C-alpha cells in the first residue's frame, strides 16, 4: 500500500515539476 502511494507521489512530483517549469518559462517569455 505504502509503495503504491510512493509510486503515485513520484508521478505527482514529476507532473508538478514539469508544470512549474512550463510556468517558469512562460513567465520569462511573457516578461
Amino acid at each position: 500500500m505504502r509503495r503504491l502511494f510512493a509510486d503515485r507521489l513520484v508521478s505527482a512530483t514529476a507532473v508538478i515539476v514539469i508544470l512549474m517549469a512550463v510556468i517558469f518559462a512562460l513567465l520569462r517569455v511573457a516578461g
Partner: protein
Amino acid sequence: MRLRYAARGAVWVAIYLLFILAPLFALLAGSLPAARDFWTEFAAAIGYAGLAMMGLQFGLTARFRYVTEPWGEDVVYHFHRQISLVAVGLVMAHMLILSATRPALIAPLNFIQAPWSAWFAVLSITAIIVLVVMALWRVTLNIGYETWHLTHILLAVIAITAGILHMVGSGFYLADPGKRALWIGLTIFWICLLLYVRIVKPLFMLRRPYRVTEVRLERGDSSTLVMQPDGHPGFRFSPGQFGWLTVFGTPFRITGHPFSFSSSAAAADGRVEMTIRKLGDFTSTISTIPVGQRVYLDGPYGAFTIDRNPADMHVLVAGGVGITPMMSILRTLADRGDRRPVTLLYGNKDWDSITFREELDALTARLRLTVVHVLSDQPSGWTGERGFITAEVLKRHVPPPFADHEYFICGPGVMMDAVETALGKLGVPLSKYHSERYSFA
C-alpha cells in the same frame, strides 16, 4: 494516529517540493538577463529542477527517522529509486532540448572549443548515465554490493558537483551573485546531508556499541544474534521494525545490513535479537560470529508495526525468513498479555525448515493464536495446507469480513505480490495491509 502520520507525511512532501521549486523560482527575483525563447527557458528550468531533485536524494537516504517515519524506510528508498529516474529524465531532456534549440552547442567543431562549463555538463551527464546503469543492472553486471554502494555515492557527488559547476560556468541566471550563492549553498547543504549519514551518524553509533551475548542456531538455516547494549540503555522499538547491522569493522563502513528485530519489543534491558537466514556472503558468516563480538545497530526504522495499525484481529502472512518481524509481533503481544485474535499463515519449503516451529506452538498457549503452516514439500501423512499461500488458503483460515482485519505480509517478493493480489480480490482495502520488502539496493 494514522491521521497524525498522514499530516506529517503531507508536510514533508510539501517541504520536498519547496526545496525543488523555491530555488528555481528564486531565479526570477531581482534583475534578470533578457529572456530567451520558450524552449530554452523551459530547458533551463528542468535542468535546475533536475539538479535539485538529484541533490535531495542525499536527504532521502540520510535515514532521518523523524522524516521517514510516516512511510517507513523501505518506501522512502523505493521513492528514492523511482524519483531518481524522473530527475535523470529531466536532466537528459534539458540537454536534448538545448541541443535541438541551439544546435551550435553540439556541433563537433564548437564542442572542441566549448567552454569549461560545457565539459562539466558532459562530466555530469556521463556520471549520471553510469550511475543509472549500475543501479538498474547491478546484479546483471555482477557488481558486488559494497563496490556498487561506494561507486554509487562517488558518482552521485561527481554528477551534482559537475552539474552546479556547469550552471555557475554557464552564467546567465547564476551571474547574479545572490542567486549563485543560493545554488552553491544548496549544493553544500546536499553534500552535508551525505556527510551526516556517513560521518556524523556513525560517530553517534560508535559511542553506542552492542555486544553479542549469544548466537543461537535456528531451523531453516538461520541463526539468531542476541545483542546487549554496551554501556548505554539501548533503544526502544515497535514490534515489526528493523535496524541496520554492522558486525565487522566500524559504523563508518559504507554498507550496513538491514534486518528485522525478532525479539519482543517489551524487553526492558535493551536486548535485541535479529534472526538471519544464510542467503549470501554476509549472512553466511552470522553463525560464526563469536560471543562478545562488538557490533553496531542503527535503528529502529520502519512503519511495518502493529502499534501504528491497531485492529481487533491481526493476520500475519510470512514466507520463510519473513517470519522474523512476525516473531517480534507475536512475542511482544504475548509479553503484553494481549488477548486479541491473531492468525499466522506461514509458508515454508518443508516441515524441518520451519524457523521457530516449536516456539510458535508454545505461543498458542499464551495468545489467541492460530498458526497455519503451508508447505510446498510435504512429509508423508501431511493433512495441512499444501503449495503456496493463495486467496483460497486465506479464505479457509481468516474469518470474514476480511476488510475488518489488519494484514502484515513479509517474505519472498513473489509471495508478497500474490498475497497482495489475493487480498485485493477479497475486497481488503489498501490501507488494511502492510508489506515489508528489504530491497534497499
